[in-house]
């Protein structure tokens, strides 16, 4: 390439580059000012598994089968099945504890559940200075389900 071609090419590509940057400058920024302004959750995103309640009966969908407990890679779910006075097992959990401090939000528990008893809620602001505050009990998880919207449910997306 001759000198004039090179100078011309350099000038042209510089003009194109500067046109791009000045155009971007007058666009709306893509970032948001987080605490004041919250971006919407994307459909199918994952945050916290919560326990669903059957609206007709008011009982948990969960039958304490323990599949989610076993499928959880970091073992952060702990389930104790309810028993009656005679020692007979009952189909609901006595305790259902989720340790969010090491939940990795992988969605595997929800995929494993055969009874549609878990779903991902649209809450993320749960941080705390105490690890104990991050262990959620059955009642807290139910409460979270009631106050949030579902992002993702068992068996894939269904919103």
């Amino acid at each position: 390439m001759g000198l004039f071609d090179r100078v011309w090419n350099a000038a042209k590509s510089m003009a194109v580059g500067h046109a791009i940057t000045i155009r971007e400058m007058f666009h709306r920024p893509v970032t948001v000012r987080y605490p004041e302004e919250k971006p919407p959750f994307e459909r199918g995103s994952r945050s916290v598994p919560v326990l669903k309640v059957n609206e007709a009966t008011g009982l948990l969908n969960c039958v304490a089968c323990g599949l989610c407990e076993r499928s959880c890679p970091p073992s952060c779910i702990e389930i104790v099945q309810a028993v009656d006075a005679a020692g007979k097992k009952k189909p609901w959990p006595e305790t259902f504890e989720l340790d969010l401090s090491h939940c990795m939000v992988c969605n595997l528990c929800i995929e494993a559940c055969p009874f549609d008893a878990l779903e991902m809620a649209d809450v993320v602001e749960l941080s705390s200075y105490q690890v104990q505050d991050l262990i959620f009990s059955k009642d807290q998880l139910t409460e979270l389900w009631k106050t949030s919207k579902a992002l993702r449910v068992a068996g894939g997306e269904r919103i």
Partner: protein
Amino acid sequence: MNILLAAALKVVGVLVFVMANAFMLIWLERKVSGYIQRRYGPLRVGGPAGIYQSAADILKLLAKEDFMPGGADRWLWLLAPVVSMVPAVLVYLVLPIGRTFTLQDLGVGLVFFSSVTSFTLLAIFMAGWGSNNKYSLLGAMRAGAQLFSYEVPLILSTIGVVLIAGSLRLQTIVAAQTQHGWFFFEQIVGFIVFFIASIAELNRTPFDLAEGESEIIAGYHTEYSGMRWAMFMLAEYSNLFTSSALGVALFFGGWHGPWLPGWVWFLLKTYIVVFVGMWIRWTLPRIRIDQLLDLGWKFLLPVSVANILGTALVLMVR
């Protein structure tokens, strides 16, 4: 006594302006880079659009430990930031800010300007040599090669303007443009060479090899922290302002403009040139050292010499 008082007032005025201006420009640079990258830039610290950010930064830097690397050449290392501030402040002396407002209207203003700004190289080399650090030394050597090779086209590119105006006094050069029209139109080649060379003199992207983060950390100011580092930054932003101001005085008619007072026009034009400099910085990538030297010696130098010859020929024929 009066002379001393006036001198003291001038010094204080310039220092205050240097600080305020550097605060403004650092904030502006962050905003411009933010919006070019589609971010907001600083917002949180307070003031309209986070304008107090730079003040907060200075407070933070003042509170930092002044750490000297082991084996550093004590006096060179300590003095380098101060030496870098000296030319940055001195050049305000000759800037033609308003029609009747120059701190000291020297007859050889342009020569004064270019000779004082070449002292920046001394500071950079003191910092690089004194730090006892290979990255600093590499950065300083690159800066040396770069400043030497761009000083020449920078000065040559202004000679066309000097030929037309017939003076080295900056006020006369600006005044000549009131009847003659801006020299930018006749000296567009000179202006392009001047602008490229002055960006290179300022060590700004795309010519910021002297502080190329990805290769040599921060170049000559790798070992500096706290207020000493801040002095390098202040000098850099002050130089950005003064070299843009020189460009405005030489090519865009300085304080010349309708309605508004002269100094407003001068500052306005200067800030527009500064903005263009920032726009370039956030658009172009850094170039290689061989490309840099090629551009300086094989392109800008012949072009600026040709520009001088052409201007002289036209002036002779007229």
